[in-house]
């Protein structure tokens, strides 16, 4: 019986997620187009090209799927599974409200980062098995990038867990009187940057940089297999937007409107900001990316943890205020310093 319910819930989630991905893709096409001063899809489906994502799926379905002759065929074919399945498994742990959650784990946050770390295994498999130099470069870049950014990503989540004394996502949300972003601005900024890098979206789209290594690790993929990489990327996008909303922006909490609406609203606003960033920033260089990750974000996230722990222990009564003041001071001082020393 539990088995059937589980399968039913999973199917429900897959339908929900696909719906949102379709909305995301269409929104992204339109946002990009309007920022670039053009219309974007306008014909498909009469109303502003709403059916464009469906048309894309049909086209991808019909595309010939080639497997390079010299490739490692088994690994080449398994890689899309390895990329997509863990990403989808992680999404079940995201709560839409205090009660609406499919997989309610005590270590929810940990579960999600553990599974999202899987993605890069699939990327290396894809890049290595393709027997293509560009995809090999892309795979190595993906490996370095995703590994490095896993650290600040995980450490900032630990910082949030310290404030809530729990890793359960619902508890974390319920304990936020003020959104955590206002108490831990350092943690919030590090988390958003690290999440962007984990997604490998511009300005961190190094593993599949079009103008350098053409398409990176999925250069040899076509048709439906390629679509799965694309799909997995959007699933990760949903996961990371949701995580940011849950951990730092008060998740499903908010006045008047019902919780799921608040949650989706926050996710969509974050998605819009990410799309905006994607279309206004050039791409950083791999070495700059590594420098940022190891020499800035990692120490910053450690500082965040140390500050949080010390202030909570030393000033148990007024810690939220004290922490917020300290962290905001540091952020503003850093920004002023950076502004002054700009070349």
């Amino acid at each position, binding site marked *: 019986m539990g088995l059937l319910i589980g*399968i039913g819930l999973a199917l429900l989630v897959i339908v929900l997620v696909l719906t949102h991905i379709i909305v995301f893709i269409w929104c992204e096409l339109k946002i990009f187009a309007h920022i670039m001063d053009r219309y974007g899809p306008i014909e498909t489906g009469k109303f502003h090209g709403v059916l464009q994502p469906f048309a894309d799926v049909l086209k991808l379905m019909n595309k010939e799927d080639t497997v390079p002759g010299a490739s490692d065929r088994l690994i080449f074919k398994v890689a899309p599974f390895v990329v997509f399945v863990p990403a989808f498994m992680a999404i079940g742990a995201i709560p839409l409200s205090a009660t609406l959650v499919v997989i309610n784990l005590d270590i929810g946050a940990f579960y999600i980062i553990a599974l999202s770390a899987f993605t890069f295994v699939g990327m290396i498999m894809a890049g290595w098995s393709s027997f293509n130099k*560009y995809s090999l470069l892309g795979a*190595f870049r993906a490996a370095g990038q995703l590994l490095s950014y896993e650290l600040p990503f995980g450490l900032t989540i*630990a910082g949030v867990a310290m404030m809530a004394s729990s890793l359960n996502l619902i508890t974390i949300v319920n304990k936020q009187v003020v959104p955590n972003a206002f108490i831990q601005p350092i943690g919030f900024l590090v988390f958003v940057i690290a999440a962007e890098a984990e997604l490998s979206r511009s300005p961190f789209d190094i593993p599949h940089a079009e103008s350098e290594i053409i398409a990176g690790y999925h250069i040899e993929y076509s048709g439906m297999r390629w*679509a799965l990489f694309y799909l997995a990327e959007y699933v990760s996008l949903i996961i990371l937007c949701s995580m940011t909303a849950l951990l730092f922006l008060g998740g499903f909490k908010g006045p008047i409107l019902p919780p799921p609406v608040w949650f989706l609203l926050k996710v969509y606003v974050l998605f819009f900001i990410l799309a905006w960033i994607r279309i206004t920033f050039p791409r950083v260089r791999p070495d700059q990316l590594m420098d940022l990750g190891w020499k800035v974000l990692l120490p910053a996230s450690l500082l965040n943890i140390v500050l949080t722990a010390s202030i909570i222990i030393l000033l148990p009564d007024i810690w939220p205020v004290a922490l917020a003041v300290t962290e905001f001071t540091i952020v503003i001082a850093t920004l002023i310093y950076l502004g002054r020393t700009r070349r």
Partner: protein
Amino acid sequence: MSEYLSAYLNVAMFAVVAFCFVAILLGVSAVVRPKKENPVKLEPYECGMVPFGGAWSQFNVRFYVFALLFLIFDVEIAFLYPWATVFRELGITSLIEMLVFIFILLLGLVYAWKKGVLKWV
């Protein structure tokens, strides 16, 4: 069955459903799509030229240094998580212990930095 276990059962079901979803997508596509292979099409893409040699050479990869460092810090995170949830009850002793722990790891990072291994190319 306990609530605790049923959550993990759901995890398993998610894996099964996701796997089947991918399999069905690829299966449907396999029925619909054309298949007209020829040797040139199956060559790896290298900007339209015939590739020089293969891609599987003993290439100078840089990420393994980062991977080694990552391992160390990831273990640190694994230690931090349980501590993060209970450190309030443990009080100031655990705080100092954790600060020492973080400091030692930070020393490692500084050493690696000075040694110049935190370089991508």
